[in-house]
């Protein structure tokens, strides 16, 4: 059994209440940080822990915090990104729903480290019921003196608000989130300036994912060095993985960084293997935005060593042979799954979610979706595959925010690794269609 730092007490029935949470060791980091540590000492522990942002990009959290502009006397803000809308990712939801106080404790300690007087949790609008759970927990924290003026008599004051989004994936991008929080249209900003210099209301701002902020609690409790002992290389600590697709036990798992992909998929502690005695065909290891990996690249790195659940190992070899850990949305496809259909489904999502600000993403995502739809529904041409490749290439890297890249990568990877499936759709449209997107035997033989 791997160590659990975040979900250890998730099965305790009263863990969602203040008393239950405290009984199981909650709010210790609050006292420790506010009473015995300086804000900079907290940041120092986070740096030592090697924690990397859990929202997708994996940027070292301690380093991000140290970029916060402390030279002005403007207010500073900490924003928790709870917009979790990436297809395949549902870990923040579990954490907030079951253990809301863990996030709140993390928010208070992190805000203290950053010197914020007001902080926000920006939550996706579809999580309205969780917003209520968080608000109740926040009210409990105010009643207990953990929030508000002069927390625990230390002289530190903090207000914490929850703000719902209105159903846009793009508002998970940090600068779009800031715009949305300011009451504007959720268009990503053009960077620089970065939020750490000019973010919410033009003030220095840090945006962190729910899981990143929750991880600050064990880091402060046990020390950054202790946290860094878990994991391998620059991937330290534990990570929540949202596992879904063709596996026996879908769900959210807290893993120690560094277990092998094979163990994660096949061991009974985690996914429990593929149902119906089928073989695995491919896997998207980090949420819909990251490249899909075919079976032959999934378990082994290009040097033949086992592929591990770490930032480095999953991205080994760049996009030619690797992918990304991303937000930890782990989607498994068995041998009967249709890669074209899945790629079309992802493309449909990005088409729907583009904010429409910049031309390549606004026009390119819709175009890719239509071409993929044609191929999937038996109206494709061979040239369409090259056309798709060309469109994605012209979106990638040329947009304001990474949503353009996120739309391009899955298409590129599907063509890179599963071109034969696209060709099969073009050649035998009726067969693909008749079999309800399940492949014929000769298809399987063609699979490299």
């Amino acid at each position, binding site marked *: 059994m791997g160590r659990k730092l975040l979900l250890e007490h998730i099965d305790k029935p009263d863990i969602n209440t203040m008393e239950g949470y405290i009984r199981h060791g909650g709010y210790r980091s609050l006292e420790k940080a506010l009473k015995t540590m300086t804000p900079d000492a907290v940041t120092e522990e986070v740096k030592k822990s090697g924690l990397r942002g859990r929202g997708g990009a994996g940027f070292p959290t301690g380093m991000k915090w140290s970029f916060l502009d402390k030279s002005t006397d403007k207010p500073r803000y900490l924003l928790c990104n709870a917009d979790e809308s990436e297809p395949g990712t549902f870990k923040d939801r579990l954490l907030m729903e079951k253990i809301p106080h863990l996030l709140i404790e993390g928010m208070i300690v992190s805000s203290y480290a950053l010197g914020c007087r007001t902080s926000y949790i920006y939550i996706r609008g579809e999580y309205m019921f969780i917003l209520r759970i968080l608000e109740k927990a926040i009210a409990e924290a105010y009643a207990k003196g953990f929030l508000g003026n002069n927390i625990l008599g230390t002289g530190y004051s903090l207000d914490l608000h929850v703000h719902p989004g209105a159903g846009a994936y*793009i508002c998970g991008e940090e600068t779009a989130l800031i715009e949305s929080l300011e009451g504007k249209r959720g268009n990503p900003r053009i960077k620089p300036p970065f939020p750490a210099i000019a973010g919410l209301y033009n003030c220095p701002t840090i945006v962190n994912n729910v899981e990143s902020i929750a991880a600050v609690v064990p880091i402060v409790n046990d020390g950054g060095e202790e946290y860094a002992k878990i994991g391998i290389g620059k991937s330290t600590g534990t990570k929540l993985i949202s596992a879904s697709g063709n596996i026996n036990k879908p769900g959210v798992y807290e893993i120690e960084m560094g277990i092998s992909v094979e163990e994660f998929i096949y061991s009974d502690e985690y996914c429990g293997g593929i149902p119906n005695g089928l073989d695995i065909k491919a896997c998207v290891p980090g949420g819909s935005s990251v490249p899909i990996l075919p079976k032959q690249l999934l378990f082994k790195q290009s040097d033949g060593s086992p592929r591990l659940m770490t930032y480095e190992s999953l991205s080994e070899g760049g996009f030619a042979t690797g992918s990304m850990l991303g937000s930890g949305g782990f989607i498994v496809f068995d041998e009967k799954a249709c890669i074209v259909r899945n790629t079309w489904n992802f493309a449909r999502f990005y088409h729907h*979610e583009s904010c*429409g600000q910049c*031309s390549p993403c606004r026009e390119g995502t819709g*175009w890719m979706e239509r071409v993929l739809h044609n191929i999937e529904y038996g109206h494709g041409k061979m040239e369409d595959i090259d056309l798709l490749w060309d469109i994605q*290439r*012209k979106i990638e*890297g040329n947009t*304001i925010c990474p949503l353009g890249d996120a739309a391009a990568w899955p298409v590129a990877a599907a063509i890179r690794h599963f071109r034969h499936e696209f060709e099969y759709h073009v050649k035998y449209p009726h067969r693909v269609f008749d079999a309800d997107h399940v492949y014929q035997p000769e298809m399987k033989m063609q699979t490299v």
Partner: protein
Amino acid sequence: MPKVTIDDITIEVPAGTTILEAARQIGVNVPPAMCYYSKLKGSGGKCRVCLVKVTKGSDRDPRPMPKLVASCRTAVMDGMEVRNVTSPEVIEARRGVVEFLLVNHPLDCPICDQAGECHLQDLSYDHGLSKSRYEFERRTFERIDIGDKIQLHMNRCILCYRCTQVAEQLTPERVHGVLYRGEVSEISTFIEQAVDNEMSGNMIDVCPVGALTDKTFRFKSRVWFTKPMYAHRDCPTCSGKVTLWYQGAEVLRVTSRKDKWGESEGFICNTCRFDKKQTIDWTIEGPADVDRHSVISQNHYELPYELPVNQKKLSN
């Protein structure tokens, strides 16, 4: 002052100048701009046609930038080296962007009032493919009249956001402009309510395409059959410095004066634009500066009206 080298030409510019502005100062190989407008705060960064490659970040940090950058929103650094037309990667990406801008464009230039002074048209001549690879139905919208003088033809809009910035920055009320998101975003009817404003007509001038057109000029003439003359009047609201577009002795439309980059030299009010269409309202200064290569410059030096016979003789 930082020194920047663009396509092997070095120039010194004040700190904070963007790559695009520096290129404009050099004057050759200037990246095109569809959304950036130097007179509108916060404009730029959206259309991506001005992408350039930064091969050296600065003297202090010589690393190249990993991606192409929007030259209209990237400030120069001392020692920066930039490639625009000398980079095949940039040309390729720009072609891609132009294709994206055209996939949903109606290409109705033959019946569009903007033809002849349309930036998208120029851009497609320079960078576009001669045929479209897009095989699907293009998105369409109903045409709407935003007020009695301006028509919005959303089909042609490239969502550069300039008109919303005009509404925000030149008119006193806060008016916001874009509804919905992604491919179906559209300039919103909120603007319809803003047209009462004296400065609203400037939206027509900043629109790079034929999405916002002057209803008083609609279908009257192709722009290259009209003759632009600079003129001014004593206007209490604006600078009163305009271009009159003549056909024969008749003023077909009034616009602000455009600089070399197609930007308005000074915004004008709606009274000057829509209500002063008689030669006697104006003091004529002479023929407008029009780029020699523009279709508009044909017959440029002819006088806009017949001179009395005796004067004709004198001038011979």
